[in-house]
């Protein structure tokens, strides 16, 4: 079964967050944790994840900056991106949707919530990839 596991790229400069989210997801998915936007881009040059979890605030390249690069690249623009936001920052939450994120999850992440949001976006992306699409 391992060959069919969905691949999730997690980008977060905070190693505690990174390992927490990794531990929640790695029971169900193949998880690639990286700690910067630059490392994420290197990974994306070689591999195509099924979903990206992206921290908003990172030194150098921020989450929104990385998202813009991803959305501008036709190869990557369909990969759903879920932002990891700090608590009670609704302005950021709203802005990430406008930039093209699929959703956001507040940190520290709750296991049940992160798994549900990730599952919904993976399923939606898989259907879209099959070419079953609807006008919305």
């Amino acid at each position: 079964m391992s060959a069919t596991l969905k691949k999730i790229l997690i980008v977060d400069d905070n190693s505690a967050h990174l390992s927490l989210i990794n531990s929640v997801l790695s029971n169900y998915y193949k998880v690639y944790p990286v700690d910067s936007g630059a490392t994420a881009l290197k990974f994306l040059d070689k591999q195509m994840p099924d979903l990206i979890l992206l921290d908003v605030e990172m030194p150098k390249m921020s989450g929104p900056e990385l998202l813009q690069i991803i959305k501008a690249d036709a190869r990557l623009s369909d990969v759903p991106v879920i932002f990891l936001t700090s608590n009670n920052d609704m302005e950021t939450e709203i802005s990430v949707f406008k930039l093209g994120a699929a959703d956001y999850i507040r940190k520290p992440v709750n296991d049940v919530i992160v798994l549900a949001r990730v599952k919904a976006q993976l399923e939606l992306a898989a259907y879209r990839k099959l070419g079953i699409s609807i006008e919305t």
Partner: protein
Amino acid sequence: MSDDPKLILLVDDNSVNLTAIKSALVGLYKVTAVNAGATALKFLEKQRPDLILLDVEMPGMSGPELLAILKADSRFSDIPVIFLTANVDEKNEEEAFLLGAVDFIRKPMNKVIGLARVKTHLELAELRMAVKKPE
């Protein structure tokens, strides 16, 4: 696929929330707003909404109580239900998923966030149905 606007059933005992959420959705969707679980059940006997937005705390029948009824009824069990939760209530939010809700939206609902979640789950439900249906 049908071009008809999707039908959303909105259940909330607070008339201010009901009006605010309804106004964010109309234009994009057909919205039926009711202020009690009992009224929602009556509506469901006659019409099938594509998605239900359901307040958690209501007098009489609570949101989780109504959800449990829906999930136990094969006519309704595959209608996606999104809970409307009070701000900063992570326990309820986790609970919502465990009960079978597809997501939650915090109140007061932000229009961008609310519309994004609604769109995700309407699309997901329609695609699931399309995949299930024989050619």
